[in-house]
């Protein structure tokens, strides 16, 4: 949610939701949301992984993507043709898909 002088008066309403959901808790992890990463991911300076169409097909099918990365385990930002798709979870040499696969039907 952006800072706005109107937030104070909006707080007098019964609010259902404010702004863009940034994170959600999954077990003991806190996962950034796909949509937040699509907006702010361009500001990230590390943990960015460019994938090609075949690799994207692998992730969209729900399969892990085996890949060598010199980074610590954790969430990575997935880029396709320079555009931020969303997130993957890099663990032990493979990326587990975290993107909303049902919404990706363009392949």
């Amino acid at each position: 949610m952006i800072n706005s002088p109107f937030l104070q008066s909006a707080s007098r309403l019964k609010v259902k939701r404010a702004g863009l959901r940034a994170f959600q808790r999954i077990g003991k992890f806190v996962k950034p949301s796909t949509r937040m990463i699509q907006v702010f991911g361009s500001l990230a300076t590390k943990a960015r992984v460019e994938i090609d169409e075949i690799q994207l097909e692998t992730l969209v099918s729900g399969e892990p993507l085996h890949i060598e990365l010199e980074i610590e385990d954790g969430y990575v930002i997935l880029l396709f043709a320079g555009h931020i798709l969303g997130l993957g979870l890099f663990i032990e040499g493979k990326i587990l898909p975290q993107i909303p696969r049902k919404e990706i039907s363009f392949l």
Partner: protein
Amino acid sequence: MKTVFDRYREIIPDFSAFQESLRQPVPVHFRVNRLKIEPQRLVQRLKAKGVHLQRVSKKYETLFLAPDLERPGKLLEYFLGYVHTQALTSCLACIALCPRPGSYLLDMCASPGGKTSHLAQLMENTGLIIANEPYPNRHVILNHTLSRMGVLNTVTAAYRAELFPLKQRYDYILADVPCSGEGTFRMMSQRSNYIERKGKARLPELQKRILLRAFDLLKENGQLIYSTCTYNPDENESVVDYLLNSRDAELLSVDLDIQHEPGLREWEKGAYGREIHRAVRFYPHRLNSVGFFMARIGRRG
């Protein structure tokens, strides 16, 4: 084709062309989401994929017709929130309202969120939008649209529009009210089986209550748009005329670079005030989209 619209034979110009347009499917229009990508860059991306786009007007650089595109929701650019499929006339309501960045805006009937996200785009994601949607089951699609489009300046609420709390006033209000939806006839897959919605007779009463509440929520120098996607004057000019007779309201002109017709001065046995010609009507045979009505309203003086 004899349709329920025969009752509008005397008020819709070039009625035979209008009827003919109803046989045609509505083409794909979409809006480029400037919060995420510049229109020229998007056009180049899609051109490289073989998707040909046409600007609908020199004046509106984010609105396009995609004549050969059948399923825009399948595009990667749709998933990325670069584009939103939206009827051309639907986009015009937000353009007519033209909210300034940094302002306070109420969208009274917000779902599915196309207009709300357009308003956020015009406000450059600044200020604050209250996206009100009374029906809880419609919040899912509303939130999905706002998230996909990267909208940050919106709070959602779930009040009945006609009872929205009078706790504060807004710079801009969009009252895109529930209506009989006659203007979307071309979008219906079973056009030949079209029947009028039940409860249509009760709509004008609800619309009047919503519009009165919208006006009462407006700041002194605020502006509101009342809009529907129907041809029915009982849901359009009659409702606006009711407001003009009930409150110190003024109809403002609508300046759009898209062909439209003025509001009706009379309908069946009723006549409306002279100001009503400032309201605008859009017909599918004039701009190859869906039927629409809108009126821009401010406080008199």
